[in-house]
């Protein structure tokens, strides 16, 4: 390797400057806690609420209810119908976002300091007095169904849904949280109200705020905003029986480029080996050009534009998955290269240099994530949902540094399971056969 850049070698060992963020824990009079970073230089605040459970709380036969409910929260609340609500929000220049995923429902708000009280009063109505008007329900239902129709012809979504069904079976994780055209069509206003009652409760709430707000102000805000929510919501769904076995599933779909989702059983975040597995994945398939999968599938062979893998430590059933897309006549080769890399890593492990490079990247890139109030609020609330301590931000890199070559190679050997790496391909793949039984 030519190295005219002498300075490189020196710089590589240096640890990047660390962005200091001071996280405070705030507890309101009613006992609601939040993590706060005060940042008074820009006159607005980002507030992030997260409620555990998410679309996995859908009742039997009501798949899609939580998703539709979340989409309806800003379609009228309190005295305001959908249009009046939207106009009011625009007058305040506030932004409210509501999202539903497998494991949580999120509420993301940004509001200006100059009209904070009015913005919060409006936000409060969506959580305390949602209307779920019939006309809004029908309008948004039609939008969701339009999306589901498109999903049914989108190879990326087809592949993801097929993999989830294969991996999780009857557990809520096994089907799309958006529901099906049939279930969404049959949802009633009562179903939406039930989904709301299931989700919004104090036994599952996590809060963070970043921006132009003091601990005292945040404390009062918490009680005002969510203090009147009920104590308990619906029971959690319970663990999934993750049963991923080797082989290929092929979903026939007429499109020029096949989309593949590949994966195996994953690892819970609480597992002592999670950091080692995280570093291992950085080397195998995390985004960026340095990963083995990117090098072998894209850089050396030109088989794809992108290939990546990631640990998905879902609450009720972790998986380890990735994606690749290649034209129909080349997908078989791409999948074979991925399978070979899975086996090779499992058998031979990684080198000291790969480990060092991955750790330098992971520790150096970590502070770059803390770049904006909304972004930091989102990170802080995720940390709470995942049960991480409040000083995690300052200890995380040390934990990453502590991962040894032995750790990574043991995890590669024990955790990676090339025999049970399953691949779902959507397209018209040439030279690939579905495995019997799939």
């Amino acid at each position: 390797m030519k190295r005219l850049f002498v300075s490189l070698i020196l710089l590589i060992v240096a640890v990047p400057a660390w962005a200091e963020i001071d996280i405070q824990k705030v507890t309101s009079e009613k006992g609601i806690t939040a993590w706060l970073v005060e940042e008074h230089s820009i006159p607005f605040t980002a507030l992030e609420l997260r409620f555990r459970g998410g679309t996995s709380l859908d009742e039997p036969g009501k798949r899609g209810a939580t998703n539709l409910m979340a989409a309806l929260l800003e379609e009228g609340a309190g005295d305001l119908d959908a249009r009046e609500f939207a106009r009011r929000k625009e007058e305040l220049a506030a932004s409210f976002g509501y999202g539903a995923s497998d494991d949580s429902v999120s509420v993301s708000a940004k509001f200006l300091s100059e009209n904070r009280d009015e913005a919060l009063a409006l936000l409060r109505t969506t959580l305390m007095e949602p209307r779920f008007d019939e006309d809004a329900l029908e309008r948004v239902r039609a939008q969701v169904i339009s999306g589901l129709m498109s999903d049914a012809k989108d190879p990326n979504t087809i592949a993801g849904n097929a993999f989830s069904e294969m991996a999780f079976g009857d557990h809520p994780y096994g089907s799309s949280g958006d529901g099906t055209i049939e279930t969404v069509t049959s949802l009633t206003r009562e179903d939406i109200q039930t989904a709301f009652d299931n989700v919004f409760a104090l036994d599952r709430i996590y809060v963070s705020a970043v921006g132009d707000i003091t601990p005292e102000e945040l404390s009062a805000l918490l009680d005002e905003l969510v203090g009147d929510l009920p104590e308990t919501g619906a029971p959690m769904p319970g663990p999934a029986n993750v049963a991923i076995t080797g082989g290929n599933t092929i979903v026939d779909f007429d499109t020029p480029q096949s989309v593949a989702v590949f994966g195996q059983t994953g690892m819970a975040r609480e597992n002592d080996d999670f950091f080692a597995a995280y570093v291992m994945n950085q080397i195998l398939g995390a985004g960026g050009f340095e990963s083995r999968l990117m090098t072998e599938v894209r850089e050396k062979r030109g088989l794809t534009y992108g290939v990546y893998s990631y640990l998905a430590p879902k609450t009720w059933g972790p998986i380890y998955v990735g994606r690749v897309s290649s034209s129909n006549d080349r997908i078989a080769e791409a999948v074979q290269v991925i399978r070979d890399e899975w086996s090779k890593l499992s058998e031979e492990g990684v080198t000291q240099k790969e480990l060092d490079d991955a750790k330098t990247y992971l520790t150096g890139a970590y502070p770059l994530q803390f770049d904006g109030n909304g972004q930091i609020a989102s990170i802080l609330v995720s940390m709470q949902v995942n049960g991480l301590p409040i000083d995690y931000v300052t200890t995380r890199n040390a934990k990453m540094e502590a991962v040894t070559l032995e750790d990574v190679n043991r995890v590669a050997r024990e955790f990676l399971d090339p025999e049970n790496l399953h691949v779902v391909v959507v397209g018209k793949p040439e030279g690939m056969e579905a495995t019997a039984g799939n």
Partner: protein
Amino acid sequence: MLRHLAPLAAVFALVAPAFGETAEEPVTTYTLDNGMEVVVVEDHRAPVVQQMVWYRAGSADETRGVSGVAHFLEHLLFKATDNLESGEFSEVVAANGGEDNAFTSYDYTAYYQRVAADRLELMMEMESDRMKNLRLSESDILTERDVILEERNQRTDNNPRSLFAEQMNAAQFLNHRYGTPVIGWRHEMETLSLEDALSFYGTYYSPNNAILVVSGDVVPEEVLALAEQYYGVIPANPDLPERIRTTEPPQTAARRLTYKDARVAQPYVSRSYLAPERDPGDQERAAALTVLAEMLGGGTTSFLAEKLQFDNPTAVWTGAFYSGKALDKTTFDMIIVPSDGVSLSEAEAALDEALAAFMERGVDMEQLERIKMQLRASQIYARDNVDGIGQRYGSALAIGLTVQDVQDWPDVLQAVTADDIMQAARDLFREESSVTGWLMRDTEVTQ
């Protein structure tokens, strides 16, 4: 066209609104002796820096027959130079805990790194190296050409909405390269050669055709010193061609097209009009169109949503899009996604009726005030988006706007009047300069 895999663009996010511009940041500008422009934007909240180098060369600067070469070259800039092995650039950035990427558009190609502020010199050393010292091999060409073809598969050929949008653009522009996709037409991409890439590189990659934008925890004088050390020593290209493009003739015939594809689940109607762009010192019309797009199709309270989704529901979704950030004439786009049971021809008629009703009624002053309030607030929110600052200045300067234009933009938007909006709308909605497209299931019968 990002070199990395990025999440697929949202279905209807055709053009991002040009909001969020602000004059709040401390900006310092220099011009090096070789003509390279330098823009430094200070933000000391975190010890992070972003370096971007923008070349005033995009797909619309390509010669005919080699569509996609600007984007192809962008990929190839991560291969070997005289001083770095193939792939070493990104390897070094990653080994320093940084992130890097690049993207190509019609009017520019840009490269950037985000990294701890004390690594700026190393980034400049490497970025300046590849401005001139690229060493490509035939095998680079063959492999990377396969990669861009797979990128086209993924972004375009696997997605009927993208294929439809490509056809709409091709129909809109009769004589301008904006009608050719940035990623290229497949049959031309398949024949792109080493020679094609090097020709584009030799013509356009030089300091007098580049803008350096450094934003973050930096001191302007120090950035200037480094820029002089690394970029200042590269000679200007005396043969840099003047940026003159073929222009559109008067558009005198409305165009219509239908695109049918078995993979279409949700048919819709798309309408575009040829529209003016932001020009240096002359941004008023673009500002009026920016507000018009928001007024017509910017969400629940917009005119099209009111008419077509609430008052007389015929659409699942409507939208209007415009961004004036282009070197030459651009487009103003609208979409109507019909409700179940509403045909495309009924949807199109409903859209036209709604537009006529808007022209009849004029501007709702309360709505205009709400939009302006949001524009003011977006300046505050934009200050929080550190990543967006370099993008905002670089993309403006690359199309000939000045730092002053960027900083004036929020005031120009605030100054837009109801009369400005209606005049801009009257100038815009000429049937002769429009394209109307129907995206259809391949089984559907044209009414």
